[in-house]
């Protein structure tokens, strides 16, 4: 077995790298740039029950070492995704993590029921952390009880493992993680974007039509690392880490904090080849620190040894 192989509930990945939801569409655009079969997996754009148009434009704004987005969960709806988008990924033979969202519990449940029935979908990512829609989304992700309730109900209908995608916009991320673990989640994805805002200093008006948006990119990486570090010590679920990852070094840092796999979002916009380039770089970095299998990296920060493994 390859030294980059990692295994998480429902996700048998030949390497720990997958694109993050919303930053890779449904894969077909990036398939024009490289062969997607090199990826460890793919997270597809959030699915809702009906198609959604999303927010008015402008929807993105640049910030220091990051960006704000307020797309608003635009997608063609779960049925069209299952008809047109998911089948197109078949030739690549990689695990598909299907991100799902909704305005009500009923919508989340129905979308999960439909999408998890697809033999091609490997696992479900429950998006209770989108900051850019008025109803649902983050509302479920900022109260322990509603997050746990929703997780339980979605778990009850899902035919595939469920990863709950946590919002960093909470006062206590550990309690949130514990609540969804207790409710039966199979894994966690963290973190979604941090709510932020940018104004035009000349006019005083917000740049984004939605006024606020979600901050992503390298600027949020330290927040992600800290949250994964804290959560991974208090729960036993595997974590898909994300937030500002753009290099192979970032991947190993995030795994050291406690992640078992790592998703790459915003960096795809900067360099469309970033995922394959990271995957190619990883074995070289492992050689440098004398680690054979990448799965050994997970949670290194909290284990006993602090010296490089090579000098143990």
């Amino acid at each position, binding site marked *: 077995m390859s030294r980059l192989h990692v295994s998480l509930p429902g996700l048998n990945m030949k390497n720990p790298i997958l694109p993050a939801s919303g930053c890779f569409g449904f894969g077909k655009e990036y398939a024009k740039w490289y062969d997607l079969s090199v990826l460890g997996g793919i997270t597809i754009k959030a699915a809702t029950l009906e198609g959604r148009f999303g927010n008015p*434009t402008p929807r993105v704004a640049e910030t220091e070492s990051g960006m704000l987005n307020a797309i608003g969960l635009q997608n063609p709806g779960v049925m069209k995704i299952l008809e047109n988008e998911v089948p197109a990924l078949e030739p690549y033979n990689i695990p598909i993590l299907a991100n799902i969202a909704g305005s009500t519990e009923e919508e989340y449940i129905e979308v999960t029921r439909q999408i998890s029935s697809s033999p091609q979908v490997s696992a479900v990512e429950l998006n209770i952390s989108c900051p850019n829609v008025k109803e649902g989304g983050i509302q479920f992700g900022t109260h322990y009880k509603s997050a746990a309730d929703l997780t339980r109900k979605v778990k009850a209908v899902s035919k595939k493992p469920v990863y709950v995608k946590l919002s960093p916009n909470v006062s206590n991320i550990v309690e949130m993680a514990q609540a969804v673990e207790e409710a039966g989640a199979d894994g966690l994805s963290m973190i979604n974007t941090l709510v932020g805002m940018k104004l035009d200093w000349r006019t005083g008006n917000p740049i984004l039509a939605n006024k606020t948006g979600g901050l992503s990119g390298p600027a949020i990486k330290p927040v992600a690392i800290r949250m994964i570090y804290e959560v991974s010590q208090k729960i036993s679920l595997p974590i898909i880490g994300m937030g500002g990852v753009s290099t192979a070094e970032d991947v190993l840092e995030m795994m050291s904090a406690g992640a078992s796999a790592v998703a790459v979002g915003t960096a795809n*916009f900067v360099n469309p080849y970033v995922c394959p380039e990271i995957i190619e770089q990883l074995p070289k970095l492992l050689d440098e620190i004398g680690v054979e299998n990448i799965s050994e990296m997970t949670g290194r920060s909290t284990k006993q040894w602090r010296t490089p493994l090579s000098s143990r």
Partner: protein
Amino acid sequence: MKKHLLNITSNIEIARNIFEMKLTGPGVGSMTTPGQFLHVSVGNQSSKLLRRPLSICDVDLERKEVTLLYRAQGEGTKQLSHKHEGEVVDVLGPLGNGFELAEMDKNKHALLIGGGIGVPPLYYLGKHLKKKGIEVTFILGYQSIEDSFYIEKFKEIGETIVTTVDGSLGIKGFVTDAMMNVVENEPVIYSVGPAIMLKAVEERAVGLRGYLSLEERMGCGIGACFACVCPTETRESGYVKICSDGPVFKMGEVVL
């Protein structure tokens, strides 16, 4: 679609805050369609991450040289303006769908209308049209004489009418104020600029065939992130993505 590293051959200010950058490299050979854009990285180690979509203004296929014009307005484009000859710029492209030229033989007259930093792609387009034997008229709108650029170069291709908001050059007013006499000949319209200008152009060109190129803030530039959508009534989905379905659309195809 490719990522290219191109070398700067020149990068100079040609009007107030407007820069002309020429870049060379083997990748330029693929940039043959007017109306397409390059997604340009502004700094190698910059904290400005997002690329800037810049329209192709001209291409010299023999010298493998592409010309981009941009306004140094925000921090990112200011960084770009500080780059020197010999430095390398990372670009994706050519991206998007350019102007429809095949359909043009039927008509002998084209009216190309551009406002501000929407003007550059009309240059490469005008050259292509002229080569096909099509008569080209330009209407170019600027804020004032200090902001105007490339007028002499446009004149080499065809009749060029200039408008300025403050009246310091050409006709005082907007591009639409200069349209009336020209549209009588029923030309095909090609227009690039802010949505509000395109909307006004469309209103004055009722019944004519035409193409509009839209501008929007972009993320990925390749159709994956849904940052750049525009509503439409002509497609079942109800939207188009400007970066990958456009930036050029038929007049009337999108809701401005």
